[in-house]
């Protein structure tokens, strides 16, 4: 130990990235991933604490110390098994988790130095493991057969929370059917997060992993429309997990919002990601063509929309946000990537109205200049109007990324389901069980829009509760 204390702490191994000047013109992944050497160097920075604090920072409680120890020992299998024990989507989490607020935020090294790059190491393990030969993979499979085909569970929605439930329960030998409303499974991982941040091939790989565990995906099945919760019990499902996401985009309720060229971030991203509009006309779904784009909002979704607009050929893209950069809810890394690629940030501007030409197409927006006031309920400084100070921003497209509200489809079809005062599903914080026995819920439909990993954490808690009850 004494030796270790004296040892100089290396600085964090940087992540190799695609050049900002190049990547603004393509949809390829921005962060390229560690090589074996880089991963080893980074893994050796871990202090292997006696009482690690990082694990508590992880919503799915990954045994981080052990998996990093395995990397140091060059035991890839061990590292992967350790992660998979609690996390069914490691390649996704390694990419999109806000690690700075979670595991890395709790890393002891971070107090005086930079924390260990846990997320990057997680991605390294998942990607490298998946790249092994198919033969090796097949031989691993015999360990996990469906032992209890008599017990089946239904998941509604195929985003991160449902996939976690499916992975956990299938691992315990329970048959899981996942009902997805869209034509491809993956939920927000597919329609929301762009290719350059989370390649669809990575999501497809994680889904394949679940299929090999015996999970079935049924696309074009809308929970509450094609099949109801009651139908599921009648069809013999022993439990139902609701993971339908928050869904409905919020708008600003300002004039001109329905002009042609004003889109919700959900629409813009769904057209490009799910509809592959970046490859129009090879794919039929079109996206709106624009030169000057204003994105309203400053969360991760806003950054995704802004960076997508650049890649779709816009000459100028601005983030329009009513508070200052310090209050932005997006991850620092995402903001930094956007700025590197040329996205402009216009802070302290609140949208007042959108203006159209004589054909009903947006040509500009007016914003109210703001100043920062006292902290509000969220703990962030609230914006205060500077009376009489407005500004016009020329734009031929606006994307609104100011959050979501609950999707009513399943909730209206399931009137017995108790909702909280915000209209989200009420679920037991320990088990995820709702007001209907054996119906569980987790993710954005319970908490409102949050992160992939918090949805996975909720999925994991619900899956444990379901397994405890059924097995």
């Amino acid at each position, binding site marked *: 130990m004494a030796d270790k204390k004296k040892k100089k702490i290396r600085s964090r191994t940087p992540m190799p990235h695609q050049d900002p000047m190049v990547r603004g013109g393509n949809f390829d992944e921005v962060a390229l991933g560690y090589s074996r050497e880089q991963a080893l160097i980074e893994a050796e920075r871990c202090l292997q604490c006696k009482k690690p604090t990082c694990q508590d920072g992880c919503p799915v409680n990954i045994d981080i110390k052990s998996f990093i120890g395995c990397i140091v020992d060059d035991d890839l299998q061990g590292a992967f098994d350790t992660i998979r024990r609690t996390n069914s989507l490691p390649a996704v989490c390694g990419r999109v988790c806000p690690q700075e607020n979670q595991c890395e935020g709790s890393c002891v090294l971070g107090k005086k130095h930079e924390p260990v790059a846990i997320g990057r190491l997680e991605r390294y393990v998942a990607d490298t493991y998946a790249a092994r030969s198919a033969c090796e993979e097949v031989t691993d499979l015999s360990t996990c057969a469906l032992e209890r085909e008599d017990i089946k569970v239904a998941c509604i929605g195929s985003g991160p929370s449902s996939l976690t439930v499916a992975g956990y329960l299938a691992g315990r030998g329970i048959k899981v059917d996942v009902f997805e409303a869209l034509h491809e499974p993956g939920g927000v991982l597919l329609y929301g997060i762009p290719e350059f941040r989370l390649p669809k091939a990575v999501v497809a790989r994680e889904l394949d992993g679940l299929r090999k565990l015996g999970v079935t995906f049924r696309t074009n099945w809308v929970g509450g*429309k094609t099949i109801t919760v009651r139908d599921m019990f009648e069809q013999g499902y022993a439990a139902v997990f609701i993971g339908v996401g928050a869904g409905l985009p919020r708008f600003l*309720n300002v004039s001109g919002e329905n002009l042609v060229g004003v889109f*919700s971030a959900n629409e813009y991203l769904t057209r490009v990601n799910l509809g592959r509009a970046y490859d129009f006309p090879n794919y*039929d779904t079109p996206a*709106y063509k624009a030169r000057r784009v204003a994105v309203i909002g400053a969360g991760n979704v806003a950054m995704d929309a802004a960076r997508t607009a650049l890649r779709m050929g816009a000459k100028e893209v601005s983030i329009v946000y009513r508070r200052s950069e310090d209050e932005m809810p997006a991850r620092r890394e995402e903001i930094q990537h956007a700025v590197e690629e040329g996205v402009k940030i216009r802070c302290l501007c609140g949208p007042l109205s959108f203006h159209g030409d004589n054909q009903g197409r947006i040509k500009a927006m007016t914003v109210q200049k703001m100043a920062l006031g006292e902290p509000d309920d969220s703990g962030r400084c609230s914006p205060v109007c500077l009376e009489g100070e407005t500004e016009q921003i020329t734009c031929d497209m606006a994307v609104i990324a100011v959050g979501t509200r609950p999707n009513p489809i399943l909730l209206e079809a399931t009137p017995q389901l108790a909702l909280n005062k915000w209209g989200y599903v009420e679920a037991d914080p320990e088990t995820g069980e709702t007001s209907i026995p054996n119906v569980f819920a987790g993710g954005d439909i319970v908490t409102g829009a949050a992160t992939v990993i918090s949805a996975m954490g909720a999925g994991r808690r619900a899956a444990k509760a379901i397994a405890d009850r059924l097995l």
Partner: protein
Amino acid sequence: MGYKILKKEELIPGQTTMMVIEAPQVALKAKPGNFVMLRVSSHGERIPLTIADCDREKGTITIVYLVVGKTTAEMNTLSEGGEFLDVCGPLGRPTHIEKSGTVVCVGGGTGIAAMHHIAKGHVEAGNRVIAIIGARSKNLLLFCSELSSFCPEVRIATDDGSEGHKGFVTEVLQDILETEDEVAEVVAIGPVPMMEAVCRVTLPFQVKTTVSLNSIMVDGIGMCGACRCTVGGKTLFACVDGPEFDGHKVDFAELKTRLWQFKEQEEESMELFSKECQCHGR
């Protein structure tokens, strides 16, 4: 894997086609007023189409479409026995149907097919249904015999007078509203200008008027807001709040503008498709 086309009939050659598609899970739940999202192939676009009829026992739904762009043109190249890659539904709120007395159902163009399903629902609920259908000419009238099979009062209007009243459906409607004692509701489905005109006619009579909006949709399940429309000064989503709304409150001008959002790209797609078809001799 796909959804099989059991029957295909070109109602108006090259223009309007009817298809019966195998989709048991949709047929089981479909009600008048619902729609489906469908996709032809893996490179295709999701498009919404109103369910014109369904048969629970056979597990089928019927759709009727007008060839207006690439997707519908491509649909016309599919034949009986062929498949759609995706059919998703039934979506949207179904038509509110209760026993209310006399209901006038107005249909124009392919809207007649969707209207027919709603008219059937009203007849089954015990309402007296007067159906009005219109087209430019007699040979363009759709679903006439299907309607007549359950609805004794079918009025026809053609622009050229080749069948029924010479003129517009709105003139027939005006006449009915003036002569009938009590009309509980008017339902109008068809081209936007027709629905708008129907609403103008019914407004002075203060008759409840329901229209079905054919907005652009991406997912059809409330996620994107592409289909948003202004109804009574509020922004609503046609997919989850509609597609049927109180016609007197709908901002039709906005709807018309929004329907043209992707005109440029739609034309580009169509042109490319026509060229491909020529190359393949279709």
